[in-house]
């Protein structure tokens, strides 16, 4: 029993190290990776819960990546799971920044590194797009949801609403609508 628990935590740690190491370009790039690792591959999280987790992560302050790690860690293995997931997702960037700080930025000046990331950026966008499509299929089942998503997107893109407003507006329209 104890071994089983330790094994779950260890797997969670490895999963989130992988996720943390490949989160380039902000927290949302991590969403498809989490989906693949925890929902598709290991089936530790249901589709429903995955979407709830993202909503919670967005509604709270803090980095999206950390909030999602907290939520899914907690869902999979309680409080120890939460700490494990946060530790795993932070560790890669923590170590790399320590290295970069010690060697004074020369890492970023490197042309090879820059070209690598220039090539990887379109793939990051593609990953986020995949996430939007696969989550959208499950989250926006009614036409009104799709319309709302487009309206909220317009508000944030063109009218420069703060993301917090988008979250609050979503919550209010949810309350207001009769299910």
């Amino acid at each position, binding site marked *: 029993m104890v071994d089983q628990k330790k094994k779950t935590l260890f797997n969670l740690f490895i999963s989130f190290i992988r996720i943390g190491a490949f989160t*380039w*370009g902000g927290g949302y790039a991590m969403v498809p990776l989490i989906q693949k690792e925890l929902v598709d591959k290991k089936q530790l999280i249901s589709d429903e819960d995955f979407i709830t987790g993202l909503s919670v992560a967005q509604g709270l*302050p803090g980095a999206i990546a*950390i909030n999602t790690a907290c939520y899914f860690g907690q869902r999979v293995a309680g409080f120890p799971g939460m700490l494990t997931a946060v530790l795993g*997702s932070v560790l890669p*960037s923590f170590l790399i920044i320590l290295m970069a700080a010690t060697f004074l930025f020369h890492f970023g000046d490197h042309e090879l590194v820059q070209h690598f990331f220039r090539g990887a950026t379109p793939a*990051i966008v593609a990953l986020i797009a995949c996430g939007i499509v696969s989550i959208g299929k499950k989250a926006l089942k009614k036409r009104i949801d799709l319309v709302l*998503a487009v309206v909220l997107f317009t508000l944030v893109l063109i009218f420069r609403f703060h993301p917090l407003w988008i979250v609050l507006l*979503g919550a209010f329209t949810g309350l207001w*609508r009769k299910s």
Partner: protein
Amino acid sequence: MDRSLGCIHRFMEEKLIFFQLFLSFFRIGCFAFGGGAAALPLIQKEIVDTYQWLTTEQFVDLITLSELTPGPIAINSATFVGYKVGGVMGAFIATGAFCLPSIVLVMMVTNFLRVFEENAMVQRVLKGLRPSVIALMSLAGLSIAQNGMRDWFALGLGVASFFLVSKKWIDPILMLLLAGIAGILYYR
């Protein structure tokens, strides 16, 4: 006597730095609504304006570095500033302080949800949040695309990766690595 007083003084000063690091990154973690990118002005205010731990130039360097390394930008800056100000211990304290509000708040929310999951109002709010999730993810994708997909090669690579990953023909992580290698070959 004087020397020992100096020692104590230095000791207190060292501890004070750790305390300040903790407080300022805890504050950033508490008020960074809308993810790490939204935290940037907050981080700038705390570490450049208030405490002057970094110059504006160093801060811009830090953002560039963050774009070239994995991890959320807020975590990267916490680690970097913490290290500059207080060594490895400082890095540890700053990063931990930034994560702490997330840990506490998510714990509260998951406990709340466990009790009230069946509640109709909670269900409605959760359903209402779904369009917000999609809207904010789209915004994140679009802003990265605006910065990073400026030529035909990048566009083609993006479209190709989208098909390969959405058809599940290729693992997302492998796709990132392959696209990076394609970047090295093409832009050289």
